[in-house]
């Protein structure tokens, strides 16, 4: 069996395992779908308050419902990229299964990809539901290239996954108290413009706060996706956020893999691999 087939076989094993675990909690699966419908419906009613009141300079916010559900769908995806590995590691540690997984001849990169795979399958479905419910029940329309939007989605998710690998390294060594989760988990929705235009940050809170917004990858990812899906912009017009994301990725991905390898070695030295 060649390397790629082996990798895919292992990723499939993780996805199958997580699917089997998920369907063992059937009610949770349907409740999650229902909750997405409730959120979209609530946002629709809130958007009615602002109909026709948006300023022309906030071009992405002419239809606030479209901006919100795009923001939520994408944020959902980004947060999974960020948190899925740390969650998987914590879950394996607390269940006591991490040792038995690491006893198999599986490499660290495979573990990283495979243990997050199911979360991405699930979040793709959930993100799709946000957009689908918006289109089906509330007439939200999308324009531009879905392929380009998808490229932004993948790129931003990879950047966040790199931060997620660092977050998992913290989980591996320190168990709790992860600073990445604090900054990205709670700060992303606020700083990256999920619920309001980021221009308002500099106008209301000053340039220092606006600079924080620029340092967060989700800001660039969300901006790129909205430009494509809501404003219908093409590749040439969205080059700037795309290059920014590529820069983030080229620094964070190798760094995070190095940090994770060190974290596993440290946990083995301390004998704390299965402690939680």
């Amino acid at each position, binding site marked *: 069996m060649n390397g790629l087939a*082996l990798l895919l076989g*292992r990723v499939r*094993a993780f996805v199958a*395992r997580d699917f089997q675990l998920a369907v063992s909690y059937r009610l949770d699966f349907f409740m999650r779908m229902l909750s997405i419908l409730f959120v979209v419906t609530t946002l629709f009613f809130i958007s009615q308050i602002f109909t026709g009141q948006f300023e022309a300079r906030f071009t992405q916010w002419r239809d606030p419902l479209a901006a919100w559900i795009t923001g939520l769908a994408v944020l959902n995806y980004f947060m999974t990229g960020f948190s899925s590995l740390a969650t998987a590691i914590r879950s394996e540690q607390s269940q006591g299964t991490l040792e038995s997984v690491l*006893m198999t001849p599986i*490499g660290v990169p495979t573990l990283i990809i495979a243990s997050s795979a199911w979360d991405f399958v699930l979040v793709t479905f959930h993100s799709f539901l946000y957009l689908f419910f918006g289109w089906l029940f509330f007439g939200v329309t999308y324009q531009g290239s879905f392929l380009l939007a998808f490229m932004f989605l993948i790129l931003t998710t990879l950047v966040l996954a790199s931060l997620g690998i660092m977050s998992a390294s913290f989980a591996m060594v320190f168990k709790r108290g992860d600073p990445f989760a604090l900054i990205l988990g709670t700060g992303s929705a606020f700083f990256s413009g999920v619920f309001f235009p980021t221009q308002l940050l500099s106008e209301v809170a000053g340039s220092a706060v606006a600079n924080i917004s620029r340092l967060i990858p989700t800001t660039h990812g969300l901006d790129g996706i909205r430009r494509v899906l809501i404003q219908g912009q093409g590749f040439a017009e969205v080059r700037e956020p795309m290059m920014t994301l590529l820069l983030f990725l080229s620094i964070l991905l190798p760094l995070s893999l190095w940090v994770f390898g060190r974290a596993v070695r440290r946990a083995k030295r301390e004998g704390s691999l299965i402690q939680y």
Partner: protein
Amino acid sequence: MLVQSPASIVEPVDASAPLEVSFDDGRTSAATPPAIDISVVSKTYPVPLARLKQFFRLRAKDPVEALRDVTLSVRRGEVFGLIGRNGAGKTTLTKIIATLVQPTFGAVSVNGYDTVRDEASVRGQIGLASAEERSFYWRLTIVQNLTFFARLYGLNARAARARIAELLAQFDLKPLALRRFGELSTGNKQRMAVARALLNSPPVLLLDEPTRSLDPLAASSMRALIGSLAESDPPVTVLLTSHNLAEIEELCARVAVISQGRIRALDTPSNLRALHKHQEHVHLTVRGITAVTARRLLAPEIEGIEVIPRDNTLDITLIREPIDDLLDKCVRTLIGGGAHIVSCHAERATLLDVLEGYEREPNNAGDTKR
């Protein structure tokens, strides 16, 4: 089948010395390279964030020295026992071999692969069955659990199905195949752990108390299975840690006694017993003679004899060297005095005596931190 010559190794241990192996047909040859080679391994668990705690002058616990200068080799196809009380270092040593913990000093290799440098290769060589029930996914069935791990070991779907069917039959788990792991009895969970360890047909098997929760019949068949692994072709090397010393005696060609992180002795079970306890207690039950007569006849001949009257019999206990003629003399004297011998039982030293003996002895390493 290989018959290993006794190699008495008492402190200082030199378990890495090549041993001569004699075959049933009389051939001898130098021993094959070891399956597990442990060379001067020490492990001290560091204090997490020690430097940070030192900087802030926070109180930190002392580092825990779990292993010290452990050196031993396990030959291919050997069932090797590791005994010691709780906290002696057995689990740490097993985890180092399994690449789950890194040694502070020294090196461990499995079939020539270094456990630190060639982790993935080592993991392909070994199967570990621990007594930890939490190492499975409780909401998944037996088949789902085994399939997941089989795929991680690199078996394709068809090979995984065939191997799992084989193992389910071997461990009598077939009727429970679709039951969730959490619904299994403790004994069946234990069997699952051993079945999983065998998924990739590893040449080296690490077993941590494999019969701990099994009923006597299941334990017996598990022991038979472990014994058969060493005789299979190609042979499986087994490192067995257990608190069941009778099991260790039954299965293991050689046993290492570990205490306070150090190997205190390493030899065949019979040599360990012989080295540790030179005298044996012999209990005789006799009738047709009074206690007064028995004492009168035996006391001048045998020193330290005990005679205790029971209902219609006498219990006579004497202490002797295993090969002296004291028992012969005692039996002849009693029969000459008109006694009938009802039963005779010699109390052999057990591995428990060996273990207790080493635990009572002070650890020679004067500067051990524990």
